[in-house]
Protein backbone atom coordinates (compact mmCIF):
# COMPACT_ATOMS: atom_id res chain seq x y z
CA UNK A 1 0.00 0.00 0.00
CA UNK A 2 1.31 3.42 -0.90
CA UNK A 3 1.17 5.99 1.88
CA UNK A 4 2.77 8.74 -0.13
CA UNK A 5 5.28 11.09 1.42
CA UNK A 6 4.62 11.07 5.12
CA UNK A 7 6.77 13.51 7.03
CA UNK A 8 7.84 11.86 10.26
CA UNK A 9 9.73 13.86 12.83
CA UNK A 10 12.96 11.86 12.97
CA UNK A 11 15.47 13.94 14.84
CA UNK A 12 18.42 12.15 13.21
CA UNK A 13 17.47 14.06 10.05
CA UNK A 14 18.50 17.29 11.74
CA UNK A 15 21.87 16.03 12.94
CA UNK A 16 23.90 17.68 10.22
CA UNK A 17 22.50 21.23 10.54
CA UNK A 18 22.74 21.03 14.33
CA UNK A 19 26.38 19.97 14.07
CA UNK A 20 27.20 22.81 11.67
CA UNK A 21 25.48 25.31 13.93
CA UNK A 22 27.30 24.01 17.01
CA UNK A 23 30.64 24.39 15.24
CA UNK A 24 29.75 27.96 14.31
CA UNK A 25 28.90 28.76 17.94
CA UNK A 26 32.19 27.23 19.11
CA UNK A 27 34.11 29.28 16.58
CA UNK A 28 32.32 32.46 17.69
CA UNK A 29 33.11 31.66 21.34
CA UNK A 30 36.78 31.19 20.50
CA UNK A 31 36.77 34.44 18.50
CA UNK A 32 35.25 36.36 21.43
CA UNK A 33 37.75 34.84 23.88
CA UNK A 34 35.06 33.32 26.05
CA UNK A 35 36.56 31.77 29.15
CA UNK A 36 34.72 30.30 32.10
CA UNK A 37 37.52 31.37 34.43
CA UNK A 38 37.06 34.99 33.39
CA UNK A 39 33.31 34.64 33.87
CA UNK A 40 33.73 33.40 37.41
CA UNK A 41 36.31 36.05 38.11
CA UNK A 42 34.13 38.81 36.74
CA UNK A 43 31.09 37.62 38.68
CA UNK A 44 33.08 37.65 41.91
CA UNK A 45 34.37 41.13 41.21
CA UNK A 46 30.94 42.35 40.21
CA UNK A 47 29.35 41.03 43.37
CA UNK A 48 32.02 42.77 45.37
CA UNK A 49 31.36 45.98 43.49
CA UNK A 50 27.65 45.87 44.24
CA UNK A 51 28.62 46.81 47.77
CA UNK A 52 30.08 50.02 46.42
CA UNK A 53 26.74 51.00 44.85
CA UNK A 54 24.65 50.53 47.97
CA UNK A 55 23.12 52.11 49.85
CA UNK A 56 22.21 54.86 47.35
CA UNK A 57 23.38 58.30 48.30
CA UNK A 58 19.98 59.98 48.52
CA UNK A 59 21.65 63.27 49.36
CA UNK A 60 22.43 63.53 45.65
CA UNK A 61 18.77 63.18 44.70
CA UNK A 62 18.07 66.90 44.84
CA UNK A 63 20.81 67.48 42.27
CA UNK A 64 19.30 64.83 39.96
CA UNK A 65 15.87 66.45 39.61
CA UNK A 66 16.93 69.16 37.19
CA UNK A 67 18.89 66.79 34.88
CA UNK A 68 15.96 64.38 34.94
CA UNK A 69 13.64 67.16 33.82
CA UNK A 70 16.13 68.07 31.09
CA UNK A 71 16.06 64.47 29.84
CA UNK A 72 12.25 64.51 29.75
CA UNK A 73 12.30 67.92 28.06
CA UNK A 74 14.49 66.61 25.22
CA UNK A 75 12.04 63.77 24.53
CA UNK A 76 8.98 66.00 25.06
CA UNK A 77 10.28 68.51 22.51
CA UNK A 78 11.59 66.03 19.97
CA UNK A 79 8.52 63.76 19.87
CA UNK A 80 5.83 66.26 18.72
CA UNK A 81 8.19 67.97 16.30
CA UNK A 82 9.14 64.58 14.92
CA UNK A 83 5.48 63.57 14.64
CA UNK A 84 4.53 66.70 12.68
CA UNK A 85 7.50 66.25 10.33
CA UNK A 86 6.59 62.57 10.02
CA UNK A 87 3.16 63.52 8.63
CA UNK A 88 4.87 65.52 5.88
CA UNK A 89 7.27 62.66 5.17
CA UNK A 90 4.41 60.18 5.37
CA UNK A 91 2.40 62.08 2.75
CA UNK A 92 5.47 62.34 0.52
CA UNK A 93 6.15 58.63 0.96
CA UNK A 94 2.65 57.32 0.22
CA UNK A 95 2.03 55.97 -3.27
CA UNK A 96 -1.58 57.19 -3.35
CA UNK A 97 -0.60 60.81 -2.61
CA UNK A 98 2.88 61.44 -3.93
CA UNK A 99 4.28 60.95 -7.43
CA UNK A 100 6.52 57.98 -7.90
CA UNK A 101 9.89 59.74 -7.79
CA UNK A 102 8.98 61.60 -4.59
CA UNK A 103 7.77 58.44 -2.91
CA UNK A 104 10.95 56.62 -3.90
CA UNK A 105 13.19 59.42 -2.62
CA UNK A 106 11.30 59.79 0.65
CA UNK A 107 11.14 56.08 1.32
CA UNK A 108 14.86 55.74 0.60
CA UNK A 109 15.71 58.62 2.92
CA UNK A 110 13.61 57.09 5.69
CA UNK A 111 15.15 53.66 5.19
CA UNK A 112 18.62 55.19 5.26
CA UNK A 113 17.82 57.05 8.47
CA UNK A 114 16.51 53.91 10.10
CA UNK A 115 19.82 52.27 9.41
CA UNK A 116 21.70 54.84 11.51
CA UNK A 117 21.54 54.30 15.29
CA UNK A 118 20.64 57.45 17.25
CA UNK A 119 24.01 57.34 19.03
CA UNK A 120 25.89 57.61 15.75
CA UNK A 121 23.57 60.46 14.70
CA UNK A 122 24.26 62.26 17.96
CA UNK A 123 28.03 61.88 17.63
CA UNK A 124 27.83 63.51 14.19
CA UNK A 125 25.46 66.23 15.46
CA UNK A 126 27.67 66.97 18.48
CA UNK A 127 30.47 67.72 16.05
CA UNK A 128 28.20 70.23 14.31
CA UNK A 129 26.17 71.75 17.17
CA UNK A 130 28.45 71.07 20.12
CA UNK A 131 27.61 69.09 23.25
CA UNK A 132 24.24 69.69 24.84
CA UNK A 133 20.53 69.06 24.78
CA UNK A 134 19.98 70.76 21.42
CA UNK A 135 22.00 68.15 19.54
CA UNK A 136 20.01 65.50 21.42
CA UNK A 137 16.72 67.06 20.35
CA UNK A 138 17.78 67.08 16.70
CA UNK A 139 18.97 63.49 16.87
CA UNK A 140 15.66 62.34 18.35
CA UNK A 141 13.59 64.39 15.88
CA UNK A 142 15.42 62.68 13.03
CA UNK A 143 14.99 59.30 14.70
CA UNK A 144 11.27 59.93 15.26
CA UNK A 145 10.79 60.89 11.62
CA UNK A 146 12.45 57.65 10.59
CA UNK A 147 10.03 55.53 12.57
CA UNK A 148 6.80 57.56 12.47
CA UNK A 149 7.28 58.65 8.86
CA UNK A 150 7.33 55.06 7.71
CA UNK A 151 4.31 54.14 9.85
CA UNK A 152 2.33 57.17 8.60
CA UNK A 153 3.22 56.44 4.98
CA UNK A 154 2.12 52.82 5.37
CA UNK A 155 -1.11 53.88 7.08
CA UNK A 156 -1.89 56.34 4.28
CA UNK A 157 -1.29 53.68 1.64
CA UNK A 158 -3.82 51.45 3.36
CA UNK A 159 -6.65 53.99 3.10
CA UNK A 160 -9.55 52.82 0.95
CA UNK A 161 -8.99 54.41 -2.48
CA UNK A 162 -12.75 54.72 -2.92
CA UNK A 163 -12.97 57.07 0.06
CA UNK A 164 -10.42 59.35 -1.57
CA UNK A 165 -12.28 59.07 -4.89
CA UNK A 166 -15.56 60.02 -3.29
CA UNK A 167 -14.12 63.15 -1.70
CA UNK A 168 -12.43 64.07 -4.98
CA UNK A 169 -15.81 63.73 -6.68
CA UNK A 170 -17.22 66.82 -4.96
CA UNK A 171 -14.51 68.90 -6.64
CA UNK A 172 -12.12 69.02 -3.69
CA UNK A 173 -8.51 70.05 -4.22
CA UNK A 174 -5.60 67.78 -3.35
CA UNK A 175 -5.03 69.72 -0.12
CA UNK A 176 -8.70 69.34 0.84
CA UNK A 177 -8.58 65.62 0.13
CA UNK A 178 -5.58 65.32 2.46
CA UNK A 179 -7.33 67.33 5.15
CA UNK A 180 -10.72 65.59 5.00
CA UNK A 181 -10.11 62.09 3.63
CA UNK A 182 -6.50 61.20 4.46
CA UNK A 183 -5.55 62.75 7.79
CA UNK A 184 -8.71 61.81 9.73
CA UNK A 185 -8.17 58.19 8.69
CA UNK A 186 -4.56 58.01 9.89
CA UNK A 187 -4.81 60.32 12.90
CA UNK A 188 -5.71 57.76 15.59
CA UNK A 189 -2.86 55.44 14.66
CA UNK A 190 -0.50 58.41 14.46
CA UNK A 191 -1.40 59.48 18.00
CA UNK A 192 -0.91 55.95 19.35
CA UNK A 193 2.43 55.55 17.57
CA UNK A 194 3.58 58.98 18.72
CA UNK A 195 2.91 58.04 22.34
CA UNK A 196 4.90 54.87 21.84
CA UNK A 197 7.67 56.90 20.25
CA UNK A 198 7.69 59.26 23.26
CA UNK A 199 8.47 56.30 25.44
CA UNK A 200 11.27 55.21 23.08
CA UNK A 201 12.56 58.80 23.02
CA UNK A 202 12.74 58.99 26.83
CA UNK A 203 14.90 55.88 26.86
CA UNK A 204 17.04 57.20 24.00
CA UNK A 205 17.32 60.57 25.73
CA UNK A 206 18.84 58.91 28.83
CA UNK A 207 21.31 57.08 26.61
CA UNK A 208 22.14 60.13 24.48
CA UNK A 209 22.73 62.08 27.68
CA UNK A 210 25.53 59.70 28.49
CA UNK A 211 27.32 60.50 25.23
CA UNK A 212 26.91 64.24 25.27
CA UNK A 213 23.31 65.44 25.29
CA UNK A 214 23.26 66.23 29.02
CA UNK A 215 20.54 65.30 31.46
CA UNK A 216 20.32 62.30 33.75
CA UNK A 217 22.45 60.12 31.50
CA UNK A 218 25.28 62.61 31.80
CA UNK A 219 25.00 62.63 35.59
CA UNK A 220 25.22 58.85 35.55
CA UNK A 221 28.48 58.76 33.55
CA UNK A 222 30.00 61.59 35.55
CA UNK A 223 29.23 59.83 38.83
CA UNK A 224 30.77 56.58 37.61
CA UNK A 225 33.83 58.30 36.18
CA UNK A 226 34.40 60.06 39.49
CA UNK A 227 33.99 56.70 41.27
CA UNK A 228 30.98 58.05 43.20
CA UNK A 229 29.10 54.80 42.78
CA UNK A 230 26.42 55.49 45.36
CA UNK A 231 25.49 58.67 43.49
CA UNK A 232 25.41 56.71 40.25
CA UNK A 233 22.85 54.38 41.84
CA UNK A 234 20.54 57.34 42.45
CA UNK A 235 20.94 58.49 38.83
CA UNK A 236 20.20 54.96 37.62
CA UNK A 237 17.11 54.68 39.80
CA UNK A 238 15.86 58.08 38.60
CA UNK A 239 16.31 57.18 34.92
CA UNK A 240 14.64 53.82 35.51
CA UNK A 241 11.71 55.65 37.08
CA UNK A 242 11.49 57.99 34.09
CA UNK A 243 11.35 55.14 31.59
CA UNK A 244 8.85 53.24 33.73
CA UNK A 245 6.56 56.24 34.13
CA UNK A 246 6.70 57.07 30.41
CA UNK A 247 5.87 53.50 29.51
CA UNK A 248 2.99 53.18 31.95
CA UNK A 249 1.69 56.64 31.05
CA UNK A 250 1.61 56.06 27.31
CA UNK A 251 0.14 52.60 27.87
CA UNK A 252 -2.73 53.98 29.92
CA UNK A 253 -3.39 56.78 27.43
CA UNK A 254 -3.38 54.36 24.53
CA UNK A 255 -5.79 51.93 26.14
CA UNK A 256 -8.08 54.86 26.97
CA UNK A 257 -8.00 55.88 23.33
CA UNK A 258 -8.88 52.40 22.19
CA UNK A 259 -11.73 52.30 24.69
CA UNK A 260 -13.00 55.69 23.49
CA UNK A 261 -12.91 54.46 19.90
CA UNK A 262 -14.93 51.37 20.83
CA UNK A 263 -17.59 53.52 22.48
CA UNK A 264 -18.00 55.49 19.28
Amino acid at each position, binding site marked *: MDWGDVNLRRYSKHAKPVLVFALLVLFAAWECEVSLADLANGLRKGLMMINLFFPPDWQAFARMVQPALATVAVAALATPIGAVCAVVFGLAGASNIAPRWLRFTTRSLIALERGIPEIVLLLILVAAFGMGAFAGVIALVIGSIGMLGKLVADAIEEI*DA*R*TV*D*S*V*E*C*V*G*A*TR*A*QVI*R*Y*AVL*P*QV*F*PSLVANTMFRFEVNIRASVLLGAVGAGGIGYELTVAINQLEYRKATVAAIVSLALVFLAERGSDILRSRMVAAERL*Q
Partner: protein
Amino acid sequence: MLSVTNLTKRLANGKTLLNGISFTVQKGEFVGILGPSGAGKSMTLRCMVGLTSVSEGDVMFTGENGKTYRTTAIKGRELRRARRNIGVIFQGCNLVKRLSVIENVMIGRLGRIHPLRSWLYGFTDREAAEAMEALDRVGMAEFASRMTGSLSGGEMQRVAIARAIFQRPLCFLADEPIASLDPKNSFAIMRLLRPLALERPIIGTFHQPEMTARYCTRVIAIRNGTLVYDGDPHLTREQLAEIYSQDDAFEIEQNIVPPALPPLTPALAVR
Protein backbone atom coordinates in the same frame (compact mmCIF):
# COMPACT_ATOMS: atom_id res chain seq x y z
CA MET B 1 -29.91 68.71 -18.50
CA LEU B 2 -27.28 66.13 -19.12
CA SER B 3 -26.09 64.55 -22.29
CA VAL B 4 -23.78 61.64 -22.89
CA THR B 5 -22.59 61.29 -26.47
CA ASN B 6 -20.81 58.33 -27.98
CA LEU B 7 -19.05 57.40 -24.71
CA THR B 8 -16.35 54.89 -25.57
CA LYS B 9 -13.72 53.36 -23.35
CA ARG B 10 -11.01 51.18 -24.77
CA LEU B 11 -8.17 49.60 -22.83
CA ALA B 12 -4.59 49.60 -24.01
CA ASN B 13 -4.91 45.91 -24.86
CA GLY B 14 -7.68 46.71 -27.34
CA LYS B 15 -10.55 45.49 -25.19
CA THR B 16 -13.62 47.69 -25.47
CA LEU B 17 -15.40 48.31 -22.15
CA LEU B 18 -17.86 50.93 -23.36
CA ASN B 19 -18.96 51.13 -26.94
CA GLY B 20 -20.59 54.37 -28.08
CA ILE B 21 -23.07 54.96 -25.29
CA SER B 22 -25.35 57.94 -25.83
CA PHE B 23 -28.35 59.26 -23.94
CA THR B 24 -29.73 62.53 -22.64
CA VAL B 25 -31.47 63.06 -19.36
CA GLN B 26 -33.87 65.90 -18.52
CA LYS B 27 -35.03 67.41 -15.28
CA GLY B 28 -37.56 65.23 -13.50
CA GLU B 29 -36.15 61.97 -14.73
CA PHE B 30 -35.01 59.14 -12.53
CA VAL B 31 -32.98 56.88 -14.79
CA GLY B 32 -32.04 53.40 -13.72
CA ILE B 33 -29.17 51.69 -15.51
CA LEU B 34 -29.55 47.90 -15.61
CA GLY B 35 -27.23 45.26 -16.93
CA PRO B 36 -25.25 42.22 -15.91
CA SER B 37 -22.17 42.53 -13.70
CA GLY B 38 -19.21 43.83 -15.64
CA ALA B 39 -21.38 45.20 -18.44
CA GLY B 40 -20.10 48.75 -17.92
CA LYS B 41 -22.76 50.36 -15.72
CA SER B 42 -20.39 51.64 -13.05
CA MET B 43 -17.78 52.41 -15.71
CA THR B 44 -20.31 54.71 -17.40
CA LEU B 45 -20.85 56.60 -14.14
CA ARG B 46 -17.11 56.75 -13.43
CA CYS B 47 -16.51 58.24 -16.87
CA MET B 48 -19.29 60.76 -16.26
CA VAL B 49 -17.55 62.16 -13.14
CA GLY B 50 -14.11 62.01 -14.71
CA LEU B 51 -12.77 59.30 -12.38
CA THR B 52 -11.88 57.28 -15.46
CA SER B 53 -10.66 58.79 -18.70
CA VAL B 54 -12.63 58.06 -21.86
CA SER B 55 -11.25 57.12 -25.25
CA GLU B 56 -13.97 58.93 -27.18
CA GLY B 57 -17.14 60.80 -26.54
CA ASP B 58 -18.45 63.62 -24.43
CA VAL B 59 -20.38 64.24 -21.25
CA MET B 60 -22.05 67.63 -20.81
CA PHE B 61 -24.02 69.06 -17.91
CA THR B 62 -26.10 72.18 -18.35
CA GLY B 63 -27.24 74.27 -15.44
CA GLU B 64 -30.42 76.30 -15.18
CA ASN B 65 -28.43 79.45 -15.93
CA GLY B 66 -27.34 77.91 -19.21
CA LYS B 67 -23.78 77.28 -18.09
CA THR B 68 -22.27 74.11 -19.48
CA TYR B 69 -19.79 71.82 -17.78
CA ARG B 70 -17.84 69.10 -19.49
CA THR B 71 -16.25 66.27 -17.55
CA THR B 72 -14.41 64.48 -20.33
CA ALA B 73 -10.98 65.45 -21.60
CA ILE B 74 -10.43 68.04 -18.87
CA LYS B 75 -8.21 68.04 -15.84
CA GLY B 76 -7.30 69.92 -12.68
CA ARG B 77 -9.22 73.07 -11.89
CA GLU B 78 -11.72 72.73 -14.74
CA LEU B 79 -12.56 69.18 -13.72
CA ARG B 80 -13.00 70.23 -10.09
CA ARG B 81 -15.33 73.02 -11.18
CA ALA B 82 -17.41 70.53 -13.17
CA ARG B 83 -17.41 67.96 -10.39
CA ARG B 84 -18.90 70.23 -7.78
CA ASN B 85 -22.03 70.25 -9.94
CA ILE B 86 -22.39 66.49 -9.84
CA GLY B 87 -23.65 64.82 -6.69
CA VAL B 88 -22.24 61.32 -6.58
CA ILE B 89 -23.80 58.79 -4.23
CA PHE B 90 -21.42 55.88 -3.90
CA GLN B 91 -22.06 52.89 -1.77
CA GLY B 92 -21.81 53.99 1.84
CA CYS B 93 -18.35 52.56 2.40
CA ASN B 94 -16.94 55.60 0.59
CA LEU B 95 -17.71 57.99 3.41
CA VAL B 96 -14.80 59.04 5.62
CA LYS B 97 -15.37 56.68 8.52
CA ARG B 98 -13.26 58.59 11.06
CA LEU B 99 -15.23 61.81 10.67
CA SER B 100 -18.57 62.60 12.22
CA VAL B 101 -21.74 62.26 10.16
CA ILE B 102 -22.23 66.00 9.80
CA GLU B 103 -18.63 66.50 8.71
CA ASN B 104 -19.14 63.90 6.02
CA VAL B 105 -22.20 65.80 4.82
CA MET B 106 -20.30 69.06 4.77
CA ILE B 107 -17.54 67.51 2.68
CA GLY B 108 -20.12 67.76 -0.09
CA ARG B 109 -19.39 71.44 -0.40
CA LEU B 110 -15.59 71.34 -0.28
CA GLY B 111 -15.47 72.21 -3.97
CA ARG B 112 -17.20 75.51 -3.31
CA ILE B 113 -15.21 76.83 -0.38
CA HIS B 114 -11.70 78.20 -0.38
CA PRO B 115 -9.06 75.52 0.35
CA LEU B 116 -7.38 77.75 2.94
CA ARG B 117 -10.64 78.23 4.81
CA SER B 118 -11.36 74.52 4.74
CA TRP B 119 -7.92 73.85 6.28
CA LEU B 120 -7.74 76.54 8.92
CA TYR B 121 -11.31 77.29 9.90
CA GLY B 122 -13.64 74.59 8.66
CA PHE B 123 -17.29 75.15 7.95
CA THR B 124 -19.49 78.04 9.00
CA ASP B 125 -22.48 77.77 11.29
CA ARG B 126 -24.77 78.47 8.36
CA GLU B 127 -23.30 75.58 6.43
CA ALA B 128 -23.70 73.38 9.48
CA ALA B 129 -27.36 74.39 9.73
CA GLU B 130 -27.89 73.56 6.06
CA ALA B 131 -26.13 70.24 6.52
CA MET B 132 -28.50 69.48 9.40
CA GLU B 133 -31.44 70.23 7.09
CA ALA B 134 -30.04 67.79 4.55
CA LEU B 135 -29.60 65.18 7.26
CA ASP B 136 -33.11 65.82 8.48
CA ARG B 137 -34.41 65.22 4.97
CA VAL B 138 -32.98 61.71 5.00
CA GLY B 139 -34.03 61.14 8.60
CA MET B 140 -30.53 61.11 10.05
CA ALA B 141 -30.48 64.42 11.96
CA GLU B 142 -30.16 62.72 15.34
CA PHE B 143 -27.02 60.91 14.17
CA ALA B 144 -25.20 64.14 13.25
CA SER B 145 -22.42 63.90 15.80
CA ARG B 146 -21.96 60.13 15.59
CA MET B 147 -18.74 58.72 14.16
CA THR B 148 -19.60 57.61 10.63
CA GLY B 149 -17.79 54.29 10.92
CA SER B 150 -20.26 53.19 13.61
CA LEU B 151 -23.31 53.44 11.33
CA SER B 152 -25.03 50.56 9.58
CA GLY B 153 -24.99 50.20 5.80
CA GLY B 154 -28.45 51.71 5.34
CA GLU B 155 -27.64 54.63 7.62
CA MET B 156 -24.38 55.31 5.75
CA GLN B 157 -26.26 55.28 2.47
CA ARG B 158 -28.64 57.94 3.81
CA VAL B 159 -25.68 60.06 4.90
CA ALA B 160 -24.21 59.69 1.43
CA ILE B 161 -27.50 60.97 -0.01
CA ALA B 162 -27.54 63.86 2.48
CA ARG B 163 -24.03 64.74 1.34
CA ALA B 164 -25.16 64.84 -2.27
CA ILE B 165 -28.22 66.96 -1.38
CA PHE B 166 -26.05 69.40 0.59
CA GLN B 167 -23.72 69.67 -2.39
CA ARG B 168 -26.57 71.24 -4.44
CA PRO B 169 -25.45 69.72 -7.74
CA LEU B 170 -27.04 69.87 -11.18
CA CYS B 171 -27.72 66.16 -11.14
CA PHE B 172 -27.20 63.06 -9.02
CA LEU B 173 -25.27 59.96 -9.99
CA ALA B 174 -25.83 56.92 -7.76
CA ASP B 175 -23.57 53.92 -8.15
CA GLU B 176 -25.45 50.87 -6.90
CA PRO B 177 -27.09 52.78 -4.06
CA ILE B 178 -29.03 49.76 -2.82
CA ALA B 179 -26.68 46.93 -3.74
CA SER B 180 -25.64 45.96 -0.22
CA LEU B 181 -28.86 46.76 1.61
CA ASP B 182 -31.66 44.59 2.92
CA PRO B 183 -35.05 44.91 1.19
CA LYS B 184 -36.53 47.27 3.79
CA ASN B 185 -33.61 49.69 3.54
CA SER B 186 -33.61 49.37 -0.25
CA PHE B 187 -37.20 50.55 -0.43
CA ALA B 188 -36.45 53.36 2.02
CA ILE B 189 -33.52 54.59 -0.06
CA MET B 190 -35.51 54.43 -3.28
CA ARG B 191 -38.31 56.37 -1.63
CA LEU B 192 -35.77 59.03 -0.67
CA LEU B 193 -34.30 59.22 -4.16
CA ARG B 194 -37.56 59.43 -6.06
CA PRO B 195 -38.63 62.94 -4.92
CA LEU B 196 -35.07 64.22 -5.43
CA ALA B 197 -35.48 63.49 -9.12
CA LEU B 198 -38.17 66.17 -9.33
CA GLU B 199 -35.53 68.82 -8.63
CA ARG B 200 -32.53 67.35 -10.43
CA PRO B 201 -32.17 64.31 -12.63
CA ILE B 202 -30.87 61.12 -11.03
CA ILE B 203 -28.98 58.41 -12.82
CA GLY B 204 -28.38 55.26 -10.85
CA THR B 205 -27.09 51.78 -11.51
CA PHE B 206 -29.16 48.91 -10.16
CA HIS B 207 -29.30 45.16 -10.06
CA GLN B 208 -32.98 44.88 -9.26
CA PRO B 209 -35.35 45.29 -12.24
CA GLU B 210 -38.33 45.18 -9.86
CA MET B 211 -36.99 48.26 -8.05
CA THR B 212 -36.32 50.26 -11.19
CA ALA B 213 -39.76 49.32 -12.51
CA ARG B 214 -41.31 50.64 -9.35
CA TYR B 215 -39.36 53.84 -8.79
CA CYS B 216 -37.56 54.92 -11.95
CA THR B 217 -39.13 56.93 -14.74
CA ARG B 218 -36.89 55.39 -17.34
CA VAL B 219 -34.53 52.46 -17.70
CA ILE B 220 -31.35 52.17 -19.69
CA ALA B 221 -29.76 48.77 -20.17
CA ILE B 222 -26.13 48.13 -20.96
CA ARG B 223 -24.79 44.81 -22.11
CA ASN B 224 -21.15 44.18 -22.96
CA GLY B 225 -20.51 47.92 -23.04
CA THR B 226 -23.30 48.63 -25.51
CA LEU B 227 -26.58 50.37 -24.86
CA VAL B 228 -29.28 47.79 -25.63
CA TYR B 229 -32.42 49.37 -24.19
CA ASP B 230 -33.62 52.86 -23.39
CA GLY B 231 -37.18 53.58 -22.45
CA ASP B 232 -40.09 52.49 -20.30
CA PRO B 233 -39.02 51.14 -16.91
CA HIS B 234 -41.52 48.29 -17.09
CA LEU B 235 -39.59 45.66 -19.01
CA THR B 236 -41.11 42.39 -20.09
CA ARG B 237 -39.65 39.09 -19.00
CA GLU B 238 -38.34 38.53 -22.52
CA GLN B 239 -36.61 41.91 -22.58
CA LEU B 240 -34.96 41.21 -19.23
CA ALA B 241 -33.84 37.80 -20.37
CA GLU B 242 -32.35 39.48 -23.40
CA ILE B 243 -30.48 42.04 -21.28
CA TYR B 244 -29.17 39.54 -18.78
CA SER B 245 -28.29 36.77 -21.19
CA GLN B 246 -24.58 37.08 -21.75
CA ASP B 247 -22.53 35.32 -24.37
CA ASP B 248 -22.32 32.16 -22.31
CA ALA B 249 -25.98 31.37 -21.90
CA PHE B 250 -27.03 32.79 -18.54
CA GLU B 251 -30.35 31.54 -17.29
CA ILE B 252 -32.51 34.23 -15.79
CA GLU B 253 -34.99 33.19 -13.18
CA GLN B 254 -38.45 32.84 -14.66
CA ASN B 255 -40.03 34.88 -11.91
CA ILE B 256 -38.41 38.11 -10.85
CA VAL B 257 -40.34 38.04 -7.61
CA PRO B 258 -39.81 34.56 -6.12
CA PRO B 259 -42.90 32.68 -4.96
CA ALA B 260 -43.76 33.06 -1.29
CA LEU B 261 -42.16 30.41 0.92
CA PRO B 262 -44.47 28.00 2.72
CA PRO B 263 -45.17 29.10 6.31
CA LEU B 264 -42.99 27.59 9.00
CA THR B 265 -44.41 24.53 10.63
CA PRO B 266 -44.94 24.98 14.39
CA ALA B 267 -42.19 22.47 15.16
CA LEU B 268 -39.66 24.42 13.11
CA ALA B 269 -40.81 27.75 14.48
CA VAL B 270 -40.20 26.66 18.05
CA ARG B 271 -36.71 25.63 17.23
